[in-house]
């Protein structure tokens, strides 16, 4: 009996040894590692050092203190449909907690939209031809370039916006808070009357809308006294700038950057999983993500081109959106958009300026392998032409290495560390 079991035991030992050799043993060089906590001190140090070098700071350093009373009334104004001139829509209609402070749709649905998510898409509301941006970090220290095309921007020479030399505020977020209320289709129903009286692209026309909205606030039994109390003025003294300041203060406070797992790892020696660590090393290393997604908000606030497909009619119509060019009219700015910040990026699908990319995996792959998801035979001639143009502009960007699917998953795991 003994002699019969010996060869079997030897064979099992051989198989066990071979199995060991086939498994991967170390975090770095060896094959697939289970997603356990990492203890690779070299890579820990490299990731911490890179994160700091590329501008990560504690969230408390980004915070700008506000006044709680203004934040409280700002929250009410944020949710009030009273501020839509001729529609029934509020800021909150498109900035929902459920979708990471965006709306979960490719393009925004403005006036006429009802409900949330796909229900809103099917409700027949007017389409706003850009992906709704989440609000995280807006108005905090240094976050001074707003919207996809940077149409509100604080520069060394002052604030640049469509208000020209008559900006209603020197604070970019407060100024930006003025814009949706005078944007046709977004919060104003596009009617013949509006076209004839207000759609003149003049600051005076916007002022007339602001005055009407301020009048409504003054006459509202709840909002009027609340705004007056927050600013210590009489109700009759309420102007729209008070409304905009209160909304901006609410956004600045409610959507401020808060400590993430990455902050805890970098500043407090917190734990990190192996996949997150691998993703972080790729993010700052061969992925070259940090070439643009740098700084405390993971954006350089500059304008870059990634050949994402265009969804919807586009800002310039017929499936065209020329991005930053619409603001500067500089030919080199065509198809460039502001680098989006990455806090809570895992919660704000769909992605790109037109929301054409459904998930984060594809959004990452489009940075280095856009042809993977394209089928030119299914595109029209003008669509292909647009794609060639986008590809041409994006080809001069700092392209990352070609990442494997496993590496893309690792980057997604790392981006998950930016949730709060």
């Amino acid at each position, binding site marked *: 009996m003994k002699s019969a079991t010996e060869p079997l035991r030897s064979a099992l030992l051989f198989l066990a040894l*071979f199995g060991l*050799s*086939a498994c*991967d*043993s*170390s975090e*770095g*060089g*060896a*094959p697939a590692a289970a997603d356990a906590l990492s203890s690779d001190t*070299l*890579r820990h140090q*490299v990731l911490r050092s*890179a994160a700091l*070098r*590329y501008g990560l700071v504690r969230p408390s350093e980004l915070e700008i203190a506000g006044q709680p009373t203004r934040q409280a009334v700002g929250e009410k104004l944020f949710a009030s449909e009273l501020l839509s001139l001729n529609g029934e829509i509020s800021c909150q209609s498109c900035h929902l907690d459920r979708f990471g402070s965006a709306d979960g749709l490719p393009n925004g649905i403005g006036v006429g939209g009802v409900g949330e998510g796909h229900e809103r898409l099917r409700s027949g509301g007017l389409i706003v031809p850009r992906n709704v941006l989440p609000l995280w970090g807006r108005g905090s220290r240094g976050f001074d370039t707003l919207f996809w095309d940077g149409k509100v921007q604080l520069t060394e020479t002052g604030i640049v916006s469509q208000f020209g030399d008559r900006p209603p505020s020197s604070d970019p977020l407060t100024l930006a808070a003025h814009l949706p209320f005078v944007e046709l289709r977004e919060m104003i129903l596009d009617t013949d009357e509006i076209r004839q009286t207000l759609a003149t692209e003049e600051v005076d026309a916007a002022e007339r809308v602001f005055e009407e909205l301020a009048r409504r606030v003054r006459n509202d039994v709840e909002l009027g006294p609340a705004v007056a109390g927050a600013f210590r003025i009489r109700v009759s003294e309420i102007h729209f700038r008070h409304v905009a300041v209160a909304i901006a203060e609410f956004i600045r406070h409610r959507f401020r950057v808060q400590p993430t797992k990455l902050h805890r790892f970098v500043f407090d020696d917190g734990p990190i999983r192996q996949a997150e660590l691998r993703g972080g*090393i790729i993010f*700052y*290393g*061969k992925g*070259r993500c*940090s*070439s643009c997604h*740098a700084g405390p908000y993971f954006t350089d606030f500059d304008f870059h081109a990634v050949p994402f497909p265009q969804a919807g009619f586009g800002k310039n119509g017929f499936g065209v959106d020329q991005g930053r060019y619409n603001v500067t009219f500089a030919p080199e700015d065509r198809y460039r958009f502001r680098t989006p910040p990455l806090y809570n990026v895992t919660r704000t699908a769909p992605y790109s300026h037109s929301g054409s990319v459904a998930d984060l995996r594809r959004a990452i792959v489009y940075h280095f392998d856009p042809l993977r998801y394209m089928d030119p035979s299914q595109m029209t001639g003008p669509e292909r032409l647009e794609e060639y143009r986008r590809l041409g502009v994006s080809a001069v960007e*700092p392209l990352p*290495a070609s990442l*494997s699917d496993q590496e893309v998953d690792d980057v997604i795991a790392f981006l998950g560390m930016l949730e709060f």
Partner: protein
Amino acid sequence: MRFGSWRNKASHLGAFALGLAVAWPAMPLWREAIMAWHQDRYGALVYQCDFAMREHFTARQEASARPSLQAGLALHSAEIALLDCQDYDIYQKWLMQWGLREPELQRMRLEAIEAKASDLFEVVETHEIRY
């Protein structure tokens, strides 16, 4: 006891001889099995390290020729990417621990390179102009 001891010695010697007889031809088979099992991963690391070194060289040249903040950051990213070469080194040493020698590793590297080369041959064969 003496008889038992003699039988034990004989059985140990027999087992030793049998082990030698099995191990001698088994060793190349073992190495082949290790190579086949790890060719894809090792080949990927060969490519990644080669790519990282090339990118690092390019980034260093760029930073030297046209110094700027952007070039400095690109060089830093390229330096971090060199960790791929450390992964390659560790993996290679790990394979050596499991019995592979430099000739086997050389063959695996060649196969990794030829995996790309065979693609190229196909492209040439398809597109070359034949007179």
